[in-house]
């Protein structure tokens, strides 16, 4: 069976510090991978998606970047965090465009102070 792991679960970082959130998927190959952000009381906003190694598409301009160094690894990064980067970040995967059901990690609560 497929599983998705996302860590850390919570993170408190000072403004201006770097960020690295990691997500890995097991039990499938060549998944589509996604990073979402959920602001308080709002829905999910798609930040990045990837259809393959090294292929990253950004949905919104921002202070964050994403990388996919391996087939089942997806990393969300920032060189210098802003207060506005605080939120709940979710990683997800799906099989392909013909089967768009997404499977989500447990999320990372990021607080920038």
């Amino acid at each position, binding site marked *: 069976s497929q599983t998705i792991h*996302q860590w850390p679960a919570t993170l408190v970082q000072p403004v201006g510090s770097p960020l690295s959130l990691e997500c890995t998927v097991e039990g499938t190959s060549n998944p*589509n991978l*996604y990073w*979402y952000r959920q602001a308080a*009381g*709002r*829905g*999910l*906003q*798609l930040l990045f*998606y990837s*259809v393959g190694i090294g292929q990253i*598409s950004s949905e919104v301009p921002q202070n964050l970047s994403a990388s996919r160094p391996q087939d089942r690894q997806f990393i969300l990064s920032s060189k210098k965090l802003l207060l506005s980067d605080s939120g*709940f970040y*979710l990683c*997800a995967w*799906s099989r*392909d*465009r*013909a*089967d*768009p*059901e*997404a*499977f*989500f*990690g*447990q*999320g990372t*609560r990021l607080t920038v102070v």
Partner: protein
Amino acid sequence: AQSVTQLDSHVSVSEGTPVLLRCNYSSSYSPSLFWYVQHPNKGLQLLLKYTSAATLVKGINGFEAEFKKSETSFHLTKPSAHMSDAAEYFCVVSDHTNAGKSTFGDGTTLTVKP
């Protein structure tokens, strides 16, 4: 292009009474539609999905939804609410284009009163 609108940001029901969470969508293609549930500080769990098969879809925990193309709706229902149903619910549409990206509604917070 695709979009989804959850018509109620908050719904409050009494335990044992029916639940109705409303969702309208817009899609240029035949969409797939989903309902997810999120408990506080947790990831999202799939409740049910519609992918062009039966229009009445049954999901987990007694939830079901009906796809109505003429009304562009996909409302979520449950005959009898349980305290454990209190959570955030998201309606999601995907039209199979662009890597299967999905568009999420803003969510509906369901409160269940004893």
